[in-house]
C-alpha cells in the first residue's frame, strides 16, 4: 500500500479532502488506456462485493421460503422432517454439534499448534526448520475428503481403545460415558478436525513468532532468562493476538468442514450428554448427507441451515481479521 501511495499521491497537493473522482476523471480524459484498465480492475473489485452481497441475498431469500413453511421453531426444534406434510425442522441439534465439535478441535489443536510453532522457531535444530515447515505447508494442502477417508478407515478403529479407557476412568463425569458401538461420535469428529486445522494454526502462529523483535529476546537472555522464560516473557506476549487470530481462522475452518465430518460421524438428530456416544450432526455435514434425497423444499430448508453457518463463519472470520488488522506490522499474507 505504501508503494502506490508514494508513486501516485506525492505529486498531488492535497490541501482539502482528496478529490479522487476529479483526479481519476482528469487522468482518464488524457489516457483512454488508463481509463479502461482502471475500469476493469475496479470492476472486478466491485464484482467481489456484488458476489458477497448476492450470496447473502439469495441464501436469505431461499431460507425465508423454507422457514415461513416451518411448523416448528427453526432455532429450537430437535427434528429435521422436511418431507412430512406440515414440515417440522430446526437447527438446535446442528448448532450444538457444530459448536461442540469445533470446541473439542480447538482444545486439542491450539496448544499443540502453538507448541509446534515454538518448536519450529525456537527449538528445532536449525537445519530441520525449513524442511519441517515445508512439510506442514504440504499437509495444509491435503484435501479434506482424504482426511475424511483416513478418519473413517484408520482413525475410527484405533479410537476404540481410547474410548474404552475414557469410559472406564472418566465415565462418571457423564461427558465421557460410552455405551459401546463404533466410535463415530462428536469426540471423533473433534479429533479429526483438530488434525485438519493443525497446519493452518501452526503456519500463522509461526509467522507471528518469527516477527518477535530479536532485541526483546536478547534482552531477556542477557538478564539470565532460560529459553522457556524468554518464550514466556518475550515471545508469547508479543504473539498473543496473532495466536488468537490464528486460532479463530482455524475455528472458521472447523465450523465449515463438510466431508471429513460426513464420512466419520454416524449422524442422528439427538443431543447426547456424552461426547462419546454416536449421534448429533453439524450444519455442513447435515447438508451433505441430506442433500441427495431432499425435495426442492428440503433443499430450501438446507439452504436455511447453510445461511446460519454462513453468518457464524462470517462473524468468526471477521473477528479474526479485525484482530490481525489491529496489528499493522503483521501482514497475514499466508492466512
Amino acid at each position, binding site marked *: 500500500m505504501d508503494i502506490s501511495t508514494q*508513486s501516485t499521491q506525492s505529486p498531488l497537493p492535497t490541501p482539502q479532502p482528496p478529490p479522487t473522482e476529479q483526479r481519476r476523471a482528469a487522468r482518464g480524459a488524457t*489516457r483512454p488506456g488508463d481509463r479502461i484498465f482502471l475500469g476493469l480492475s475496479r470492476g472486478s*473489485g466491485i464484482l467481489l462485493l456484488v458476489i458477497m452481497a448476492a450470496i447473502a441475498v439469495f441464501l436469505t431469500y431461499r431460507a425465508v421460503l423454507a422457514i415461513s413453511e416451518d411448523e416448528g421453531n427453526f432455532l429450537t426444534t430437535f427434528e429435521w422432517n422436511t418431507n412430512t406434510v406440515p414440515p417440522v425442522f430446526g437447527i438446535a441439534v446442528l448448532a450444538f454439534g457444530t459448536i461442540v465439535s469445533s470446541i473439542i478441535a480447538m482444545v486439542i489443536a491450539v496448544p499443540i499448534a502453538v507448541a509446534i510453532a515454538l518448536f519450529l522457531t525456537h527449538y528445532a535444530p536449525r537445519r530441520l526448520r525449513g524442511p519441517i515447515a515445508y512439510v506442514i505447508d504440504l499437509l495444509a494442502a491435503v484435501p*479434506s*475428503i482424504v482426511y475424511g477417508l483416513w478418519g473413517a478407515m*484408520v482413525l475410527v478403529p484405533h479410537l476404540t481403545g481410547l474410548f474404552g479407557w475414557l469410559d472406564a476412568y472418566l465415565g462418571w463425569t457423564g461427558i465421557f460415558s460410552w455405551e459401546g458401538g463404533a466410535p463415530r461420535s462428536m469426540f471423533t469428529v473433534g479429533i479429526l478436525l483438530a*488434525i485438519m486445522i493443525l497446519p493452518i494454526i501452526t503456519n500463522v502462529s509461526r509467522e507471528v513468532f518469527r516477527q518477535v523483535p530479536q532485541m526483546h529476546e536478547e534482552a531477556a537472555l542477557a538478564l539470565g532468562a532460560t529459553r522457556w522464560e524468554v518464550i514466556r516473557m518475550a515471545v508469547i506476549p508479543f504473539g498473543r493476538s496473532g495466536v488468537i487470530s490464528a486460532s479463530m481462522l482455524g475455528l472458521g475452518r472447523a465450523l465449515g468442514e463438510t466431508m471429513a465430518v460426513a464420512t466419520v460421524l454416524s449422524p442422528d438428530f439427538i443431543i447426547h450428554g456424552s461426547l462419546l456416544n454416536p449421534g448429533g450432526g453439524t450444519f455442513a455435514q447435515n*447438508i451433505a448427507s441430506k442433500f441427495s434425497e431432499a425435495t426442492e423444499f428440503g433443499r430450501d430448508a438446507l439452504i436455511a441451515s447453510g445461511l446460519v453457518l454462513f453468518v457464524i463463519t462470517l462473524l468468526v472470520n471477521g473477528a479474526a481479521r479485525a484482530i490481525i488488522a489491529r496489528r499493522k506490522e503483521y501482514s497475514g*499474507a499466508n492466512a
Partner: protein
Amino acid sequence: MSNATIADKRPSTLRGARLPKWSPYAIAAGSVAVAIGIGLAAGLDSRVQWGLIAGLLYVFGSYAIAARVEGRRQAKDRVATSLVWVAFLLAVVPLVSLVWTTIARGVKVLDVYFLTHSMGVVADSQPGGGIYHAILGSLEQVGLATLIAAPIGVLTAIYLVEYGRGGLARSVTFFVDVMTGIPSIVAGLFILSLMLMFDMQPFGFAGSLALAILMVPVVVRSTEEMLKLVPNELREASLALGVPKWRTILKVVLPTSIGGITTGIMLAIARIAGETAPVLLLVFGSKFINANPFEGAQASLPLYIYQQYGSGETPAYDRAWAASLTLIAFVMILNMVARGIARWKAPKTGR
C-alpha cells in the same frame, strides 16, 4: 591463566551447576526401560500405553533430576523443552499415518487401466473400473474455475495495490478476507439457490462457478503480496519516461512479479481441486464419461472418493484409496512445482 584455575577450584556464582549434555538421552533411555518393565509386569498389551508411561516418566524424571541439580527454573525450562518436542511428535503421528496409509492402500489397484477407464459398466461391489471420467470432470471443472477466477483475482489485486485507496478499496480488502473463510458448502449452496431459481439440473459448470468463488480470494491475497514486493523505483522509472500507468503495470509490474503470481494461482488450484462439497451439490457425480461440462451430471475426483467410500464395499474402498492417492499426488505435484517457481523467480528481497 590464573583466572581459569581459580574458576576450577571454586564453583562460579554466575552460572549454576549444569547437568551433562548427555543427561536427557540417559533419562529418556531410563524412562523407556522402566516403562517397558511396568508394561510387562502389568501385562498392558497396548504399545500406546507403554509410550504414554515412558513419556510421563521422562517428563517427571527430568524435572526432578534437573530441579535437584540445576534449580527450579532450569527444571521448568527442561520440561517446556520436552513438552514442545512431545507436541511435535504427537502431531507427526497422524500425519505420517495418513500419508502412509494412502500410499500403501492406494497402490493396490492404481495402474494404467485404473487411470484410463470409467465406472460405466462396473457395479460398486465388483473389482475393476477406474477414474478416467472423474479425472476428466475434475480437470474441466477446475480448469473453467481457474479461467474465471484467475483474471478476476489478479485484476482485483492490481486495483488494490496500484489504484485502490479510500472506502471502496478498504471494503474490498475486508470482504476478500471474509471470503477466504467462506465454507465451501456455502459457496455451493449459493450457486444451488441460483439453479433452483432457474430450475436447472446439475452440470459441471455450476461446480466451476462455486469453485471460482472459493478460488478468487486466495488469488487476490497472494497476487497482492507479490505486487507489493515490486520495487517502487521500477514504477517511478517507467512513469518518469512518460509511459502511461496501465502500460507500466502491464509491461513492468506484472512481468516482475509473474513468478509469484503463477505460484499463487497454482496453490489456489491445488486448494480447489480437492473440494468435494460444492461438487456434490452442483455436479452430482456420474459413473459415465461426460466430456461436456455445460450439460448433464459429471464426475469429479474428490466426489468419486466420497461416493466409493459411501457404497461400503471392499473393492470400492480400494478404489477410493487409489483415487485419494491420485488426488494427493496431483495436489502435491502442483504445490511443489508452484514452490519451485516461487524460489526460482523470487524477487531478491534479502529476507
